């Protein structure tokens, strides 16, 4: 085959792969939105699910539980996640200890979430007496997501050129000042991407929350209340009831929430970067 025709073939193949990916994405989102949006109303958003076989009611408590869980999980996750990434890139020497840490992080990233769920059930729900609660769910998610955040933040921090660090140090700043005022701002977009990935995982996770949050449809009153997130509610609707249209509407809400959160966080990150860069 001539070079020209292989080039053509490769082009067709690559375009085709791209087109198929986009098509599948739009098919799923389009299908869910088309079937779900007609059932969407303010009362659906603001009434609690009534439970039972018919899946009566709305999703208000699931929305509130989801918000609590996302905020709590990210709040606990952010410091150790970014801190560990800074340690691995800026402080750790390449020795057996850091190699073990990296190996552990990589391995953990590949462990199925239900395994974390089981761990969370044994440790947080049972041993620490947090019972089925948002707290147990959040702590379990922190374990699940730490590897993801550490690796993405690590890549972002590594990508900051060494010349920036050298410039800061040569101006008489301490190592920490160089990290805080130069490296982290420059790495922020990458770190934010990692956090968005984590939020996406929290919103979508069911298995490990199933065994750590119980799944009560009541409104949570504290972090020690049990509850169900939107995804978990969706799971219950789809398996325990015959309210498929409600499941679709919930799914549509979930997709919209993810889109909105991504947009907001990207906007904040861009604003921050613009400020760092000056008016340009």
């Amino acid at each position, binding site marked *: 085959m001539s070079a020209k025709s292989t080039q053509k073939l490769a082009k067709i193949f690559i375009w085709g792969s791209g087109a198929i990916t986009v098509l599948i994405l739009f098919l799923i989102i389009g299908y869910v939105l088309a079937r779900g949006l007609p059932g969407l109303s303010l009362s659906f958003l603001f009434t609690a699910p009534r439970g039972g076989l018919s899946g009566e009611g709305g999703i208000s408590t699931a929305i509130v539980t989801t918000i609590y869980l996302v905020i709590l999980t990210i709040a606990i996750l952010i410091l150790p996640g970014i801190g560990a990434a800074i340690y691995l890139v800026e402080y750790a020497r390449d020795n057996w200890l850091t190699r073990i840490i990296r190996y552990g992080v990589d391995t953990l990233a590949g462990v199925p979430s239900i395994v974390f769920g089981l761990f969370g059930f044994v440790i947080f729900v049972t041993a620490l007496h947090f019972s089925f609660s948002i707290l147990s769910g959040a702590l379990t998610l922190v374990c699940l997501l730490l590897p993801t955040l550490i690796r993405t933040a690590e890549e972002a921090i590594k990508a900051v050129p060494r010349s920036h660090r050298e410039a800061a140090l*040569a101006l*008489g700043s301490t190592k920490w000042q160089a990290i805080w005022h130069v490296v982290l701002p420059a790495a922020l977009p990458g770190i934010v991407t990692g956090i968005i990935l984590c939020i996406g995982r929290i919103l979508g996770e069911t298995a490990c929350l199933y065994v750590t949050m119980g799944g009560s449809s009541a409104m949570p009153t504290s972090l020690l209340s049990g509850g169900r997130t939107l995804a978990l509610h969706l799971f219950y609707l789809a398996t325990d009831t015959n309210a498929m249209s409600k499941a679709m509407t919930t799914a549509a809400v979930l997709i919209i929430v993810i889109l909105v959160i991504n947009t907001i966080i990207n906007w904040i990150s861009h604003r921050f970067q613009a400020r760092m860069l000056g008016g*340009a």
Partner: protein
Amino acid sequence: MDPKIETKHVNFYYGSVHCLNDVTLHIKEHEITALIGPSGCGKSTFLRTLNRMNDIIPGTRIEGEVLLDKQNIYERGVDVVELRKRVGMVFQQPNPFPKSIFENIAFGPKRLGLSHKLNLDEVVEKSLRAAALWGEVKDNLHKSALALSGGQQQRLCIARVLAVEPEVILMDEPCSALDPASTLKIEELMQDLTKNYTIVIVTHNMLQAARVSEWTGFFLLGEMIEYGKTVDIFSRPKDKRTEDYITGRFG
């Protein structure tokens, strides 16, 4: 007059590689000293020993003494941060922070905790004037430094160092990424700066060394072959290797 910086028998190792071999020299105050030599001769490594910039590279080791105003900077208990405040550095590639012009200049004073004592606006203006950049950027102080040209970025980096008011400025091939016009500006600037600062410049451009410096040291394979007045080095080199290098026979 006592030398500003004096190195005594400096040996430097990168892992098991012996990069600098027994380098001893004096650097005079308020004069420009140029270090020349072919790529990989150790001149940049030597420059970086003068403000302990090599400390941040793992697996390196230094022997010997580097005296700044007669005090050994490698002695136990020396504050490296304080040292780097006194001995600033300009790098080969212009490396402004991805921040505004103003924030780049204010970075040093702010980190040193001087912002409450000084008027930052004044510091920024003074530093940019001293680096001959004020006229070009005074209306755009809050624009990104990355929008400047390469030559302007390098003068910004010099201004950024001046804002910290060091005593010595180390320049590691500061013009190698610049066009001839920008290079000329920086060379003129260096002459002005000798009123207040001691400058050590590493360059692979021999003409530049001849143009700007008072003193020249020739490095080859980690050794300092010859050191003396720039006029002497370029007109009457004592060592055959120096002569070969400056007449363009190698390197």
